[in-house]
């Protein structure tokens, strides 16, 4: 229980700290992609490499991904509809047949409606999501945070030193 409390505190600390808004938004966007795409080793490894390469916040990524993973399976049907529209398109069949013969590409599992739908969502939706996160964090820091700092709730999240002492 204390661990969860400390994790939330840490997450809020990152939000409230001088950590760049771009980094946090990038981490959150990657976390959403990571959660929304059904497990494909190559893609998930690539996402992790991207996170590390672009200096994303690993803590925020690891904190938010499991939470999103709880929600995303509930929208798989809608994602499937998107993927199904593309994969069942007869005019694209010849392209898909060519793609199917390319070595290693099959490991991306693109011929599955949910997986392809999630790829498309991630490709199209990542940029707007990134900007949405960025704008939200900025607004939070400008408007919500000063008010929070004055409220009693903020003091509740200030963990006494003796708790951290026990954790050590």
């Amino acid at each position, binding site marked *: 229980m204390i661990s969860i409390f400390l994790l939330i505190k840490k997450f809020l600390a990152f939000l409230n700290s001088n950590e760049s808004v771009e980094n946090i938004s990038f981490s959150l966007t990657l976390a959403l992609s990571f959660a929304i795409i059904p497990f494909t080793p190559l893609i998930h490894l690539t996402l992790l490499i991207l996170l590390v*390469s672009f200096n994303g916040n690993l803590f925020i990524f690891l904190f938010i991904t499991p939470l999103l993973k709880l929600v995303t399976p509930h929208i798989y049907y809608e994602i499937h509809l998107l993927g199904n529209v593309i994969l069942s398109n007869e005019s694209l069949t010849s392209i898909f047949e060519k793609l199917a013969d390319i070595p290693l590409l099959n490991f991306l599992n693109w011929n599955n*409606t949910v997986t392809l739908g999630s790829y498309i969502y991630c490709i199209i939706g990542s940029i707007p999501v990134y900007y949405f996160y960025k704008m939200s964090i900025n607004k939070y820091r400008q408007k919500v945070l000063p008010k929070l700092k004055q409220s009693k709730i903020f003091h509740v999240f200030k963990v006494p030193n003796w708790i951290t002492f026990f954790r050590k």
Partner: protein
Amino acid sequence: MKKTIKLFVLFALISIPTWILMDNIILRKLIILSLEKATKKEVHLEKLNINYFPNIKIKLNNLKIPNPYQDNYLIVAENLFIDLETSALLQKSLIINNITSNKAILMDSREQPIKIIDESSNQRSKKSNISSTLKKYLETSLNIHNDSEIKSTIESTFDFNNEINDLETIISSSTSLINEKKDNVLKQTTNTLYRINNINIDTIQNIDQLNETQKTMGSITQDYESITKEIKDIENIYQQSDLKIKEINDNLNNKIDESFSFQVINNHAAPSANELSQPVKNSLSHLLTKFRQGQSKKKATKFSGITYNFRKNNLPQFLIRKIEINTFNDDHYFKGLNLTTSKHNKVDLKLYLKLFNQNKFDKLIVNLSSPDNHDYEVNIRARNIHLNQTKLYETEDILVNFLNNKTTDLDISGTLSASSNIITTAIIKKPNYRVISKKTTPHFLTSFIPYLNNEDISLEITLNGKIDDLSVNVTTNLDPLINNIQNRLFDKKMVEIKKQKQREINRIKEEKLGETNKKSTEFSKEYTKTINQLKFQEKEIFNQKGLIERRINQKKVQIENAVMGDLNRVIKKINLNGLSN
């Protein structure tokens, strides 16, 4: 970015040699884990070697793969060579060019594998369902000799209430009539006797008094005749009642005898039309339903979308081009060509398995082939299957065991496809049974079961149609065989039952007729007492009447004599007077 590239290079530099050094350990662990997950039993693999060029070649040393369904190993191989097609792996296909082993034992039961997880309760319930169905069939087939059921059925047909009610009605109405008449008679007799006693012969002095007394006697005689008539009426009432009571008792007797007649016992004890085919059909239907339920449960997992197949190169996801375990002359031999799970690949699939001199059978040959991966020609021959001693039937009186049998054959042939057509034939040759009587009294099965000894049992199951709508036909010689023995033993059985039933008849007669006899005896006793009393009164009247009549006659003579004497004296006096004059 430079930092990232450095990291990648470092990662590659570390991971590639690590993989080369550790590949056998990692793959060994992966193989063991996946096989253990599939079989739910401990898998043994001592050593694994991999060569990557030109193709991936894996050598497995001391491999033991357990049988998930039985307590033996599917394969125990000293070495097993696997040759994989590397290029197919890039297409996400697992193509195995060759699996070979020269030193392997198939279906090895020398050791028992260790279970990791208990067998699913689902399987246990399937087994219990089949065994319970067979047990139920045997119980219903053999239980026709259970006399207690016949007894209870016959006894339940007894209803003597009407007869007993009739009897009671007759006795009560007759008793009331007799009592009424008895009261009348007693009144009359008392009155008559009183009148007789009032007659005093000594006081009769003259002829007028005598005439008066004679008149009274006439009236008394009339009363006496009326009393006699009344008593005769009572006797008639009793006789009629007695006849009716006898009639009722005869009816009762006949009813009991008819209830135990040959026809009734015959109807109750005749062999019932039990058929093994129906329970076998039910069992198969039950298994198919369970299978379908399992399939639908598997389908009903988390939504994962639709996977389209755009491959044009016809490379299946999984294919074993050739598998050969041992050589054809060995007791254990397995050969497979083009084994694949893919339905899209039109390959000439062939599978041949030969197992000789096993613990559970002497010979098993499995032949499976498919030209198109849709219709599978199946041919399975098992010879001399070893069946262990099994308890077939048990009651508190008797135990019937099926003895160890090593001459059972099984043949399965047909086409396994979307519209299957499979014929399964099983023959148990020369089976033997042992009957153990738990009680000293002889049980009928002791003579029944030996007739089944050495009688071959055959069972043929034909499956037709789609798995969703499979028609099952079962023919067996066990039904006619049991019926035949039942008929042969029927006369013997009837004698046995009749003997028992005779005792039952006597008991029931004693019980039921005793009840009516008691009532009629009481009625007779009461009647005898009444009639004796009345007869005594009648006799008393008769005696006293006779006495009085005799005395009246004497008196009459006396009076006559006296009158005659007086008359003579008068005449003499008249004569003397005449002479004197």
